């Protein structure tokens, strides 16, 4: 080729570059041709983004069925949460098309609501939802995370009530009747005898998987909500430094240090955490319905060893459940076919067939109340020692607390998780480890957290003018 070039007296010489240099040039030419020759397939029909692989496996068959006999055609892509957040927001904010339908996890929705309401990238579905009677069919608390300033921007995917999962084999062998426990205080006392070197490897084994780190911020929020606390009230006003919140923080910190320690860092979806669960180094976990499905596929070897029970309450007679996670499906404003997208969204989220599949494959109960009496929710679960898991979750579903949709919720959660970490560190340093001794510190740290979030709220000029 070089000889051929030289014919034309082009100013290129073999000496200009080394072999490696020429190789990179050749790669540049070849890959350019490759990119040109391999066109990006333009999919007909609607693009739909999802974040969860288990959801995707269920949708795959559902969508195949749909595409055979219905229009518009649906094309599914699975994205990681971070990538989805990035591309979704980037698309919304610059009017570059993203997808037609997006299934979003709750932690990634607040930023969508940060700007002026007219700049929210999802289509306002309030009118459709109310006009078609969907509003009354669905469990009310399920709408909360997807609503901002009174408008609803997505169909809710789930309810996600929370229970307590425990190693029934271990507790029963030890003669501890965990299901009779009514409050968290009682829980801490009852389980304490089991702390110790349970599997003989010279390390102390604890009871419940809960820790003061960012990875547990969702569990922390769930426990705060269960206690009747919140980070934002129903009108979106921040209230971080409250008596209830401080009590939850002080109690959780008391679980993590000192002679009464019962908690351990066994993160979910994590190899280390799963190994600890398998080895019996942690016995109790906070368990929303969707996590049942995740455990069944990630830790199948625990099958038959676990049972579920309602959460112990913070006060005698208090709420026995909470809520963690959640997803919605939204229609983007850049879609060319909002009607088709709406049709698809309703099919995937509201049809009875898919409600059943969602439960069977993912363990998730439908937010559509009229399906709650169906038989498939009564089937005993092998994984959970024959318990009718679906029924148990449904019984708790109406009680789940309201989740905020404040645009600042993610920051607030981070700050509160941080406050918990600092309370724990304080306990470690000072040796004070009872909830009572830690209350003052909890208030102090929550105050700091509140100050930081409050400044961010006040700095936002787009939301400032609105009620």
């Amino acid at each position, binding site marked *: 080729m070089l000889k051929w070039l030289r014919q034309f007296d082009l*100013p*290129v*010489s073999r*000496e*200009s*570059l*080394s*072999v*490696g*240099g020429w*190789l*990179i*040039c050749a*790669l*540049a030419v070849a*890959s*350019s041709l*490759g*990119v040109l020759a*391999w066109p*990006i*397939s333009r999919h007909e029909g609607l693009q739909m983004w999802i*974040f*969860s*692989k*288990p959801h995707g496996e269920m949708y795959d068959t559902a969508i195949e069925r749909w595409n055979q006999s219905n229009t518009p055609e649906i094309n599914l*892509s699975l*994205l*990681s*949460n971070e*990538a989805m957040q*990035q*591309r979704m927001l*980037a*698309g919304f904010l*610059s009017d*570059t*098309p*993203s997808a037609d339908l997006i299934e979003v*996890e709750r932690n990634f929705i607040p930023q969508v609501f940060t700007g002026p309401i007219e700049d929210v990238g999802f289509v306002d579905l309030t009118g459709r939802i109310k006009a078609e009677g969907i509003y009354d069919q669905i469990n009310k608390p399920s709408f909360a995370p997807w609503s901002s300033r009174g408008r609803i921007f997505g169909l809710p995917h789930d309810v996600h009530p929370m229970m307590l999962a425990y190693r029934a084999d271990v507790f029963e062998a030890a003669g501890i009747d965990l299901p009779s426990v009514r409050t968290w205080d009682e829980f801490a006392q009852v389980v304490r005898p089991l702390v110790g070197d349970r599997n003989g490897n010279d390390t102390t084994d604890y009871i419940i998987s809960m820790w003061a780190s960012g990875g547990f911020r969702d569990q922390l929020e769930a426990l705060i909500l269960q206690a009747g606390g919140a980070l934002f009230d129903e009108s979106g006003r921040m209230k971080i430094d409250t008596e209830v919140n401080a009590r939850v923080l002080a109690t959780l910190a008391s679980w993590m240090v000192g002679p009464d320690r019962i908690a351990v860092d066994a993160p*979910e*979806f*994590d*190899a280390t955490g*799963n*190994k600890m669960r398998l080895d019996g180094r942690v016995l109790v976990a906070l368990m929303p319905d969707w996590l049942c499905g*995740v455990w069944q596929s*990630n830790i199948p070897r625990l099958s038959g060893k676990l049972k579920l029970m309602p959460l112990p309450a913070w006060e005698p007679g208090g709420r026995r459940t909470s809520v963690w996670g959640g997803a919605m499906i939204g229609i983007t404003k850049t879609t060319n076919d909002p009607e088709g997208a709406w049709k698809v969204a309703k099919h995937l989220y509201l049809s009875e067939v898919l409600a059943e599949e969602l439960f069977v494959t993912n363990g998730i109960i439908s937010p559509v109340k009229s399906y709650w009496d169906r038989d498939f929710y009564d089937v005993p679960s092998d994984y959970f020692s024959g318990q009718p898991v679906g029924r148990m979750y449904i019984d708790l579903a109406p009680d789940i607390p309201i989740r905020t949709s404040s645009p600042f919720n993610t920051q607030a959660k981070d700050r509160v998780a941080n406050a918990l970490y600092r309370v724990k560190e304080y306990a470690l340093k000072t040796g004070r480890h009872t909830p009572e001794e830690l209350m003052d510190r909890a208030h102090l740290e929550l105050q700091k957290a509140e100050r930081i979030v409050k400044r961010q709220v006040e700095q936002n000029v787009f939301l400032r003018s609105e009620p």
Partner: protein
Amino acid sequence: MAQTKPTKMFKSVGFYGVLYGVLIFCAAITLVPFAYLLCASLKPTDIFFDNLFLPSGDGLFGVAWDQLTLSHFHRLFAEEGFARPILNSTFFASVSGVLATLFSAMSGYALAKFRFRGRDSVTNLVLAALVVPGALLLAPNYQLLYWFGMLDSYTGLILPALAPAFGVYLFRQATINSVPTELLESARIDGCGEIKIFFTFVLPLIRPMMGAFLLLTFLGSWNNFIGAQIVLQTPEKMPLAVAINQLRGVYGTDYGLIMAGTVISILPVLGLFLLLQKEFLSGLTAGAVKG
């Protein structure tokens, strides 16, 4: 120099023992993560965390060799469609590398060997740009690409990478150090055109720097993650770094798959490095010498 009389200290076996000991120890520490990576990419998912390196068993050295599998690599291509990200990465890295190097070499040469209006201000600007953090430009560049309609395009990812101040600085140094002005003048007297002078006389003289900077920019674009994550939207356009990171699942990560992807991402640059090694080392350092 080897003929000079070695002093007693240098003769002692102990000294060399320590020297090689330290070198081998450091080399081992450097290589352990690679060994870990390679083992991890070959272990099946269900026993991934049972052993740190290779699964133990009855085979040679107490390793269960038969448990090792290439299935992660197979899955990457069969299920995750990794051929496309590899092509994309090659495209980004080679095109950015070639153009950025060419542009830098041209302007480094111009700044070093020509007198023209604005030369000093451009030189100062380039020096100042060296300390500008790239992150400062992320936000305005995003907006700029939005205005140009270049978001989610190959151009939007490649174009901003074509003006590396660092490269111009390096090539200016390299030209000053290794291109004699007399050579250029005699070439001009012989009637050579300026373009021809650049390609046939200047480039061969700064060849080490060309090799070094080509590799450096190739490496930079090959491993660029944030840029692609921000600019691109369409899955088919994503480079390898994004595609691999995408494998980190919400409810648990298949580490074997990610490690296999990482091995795939290292092999091509390792090959290029071996090819360009000599130039890379001499070129990179030539630029660092004060001119």
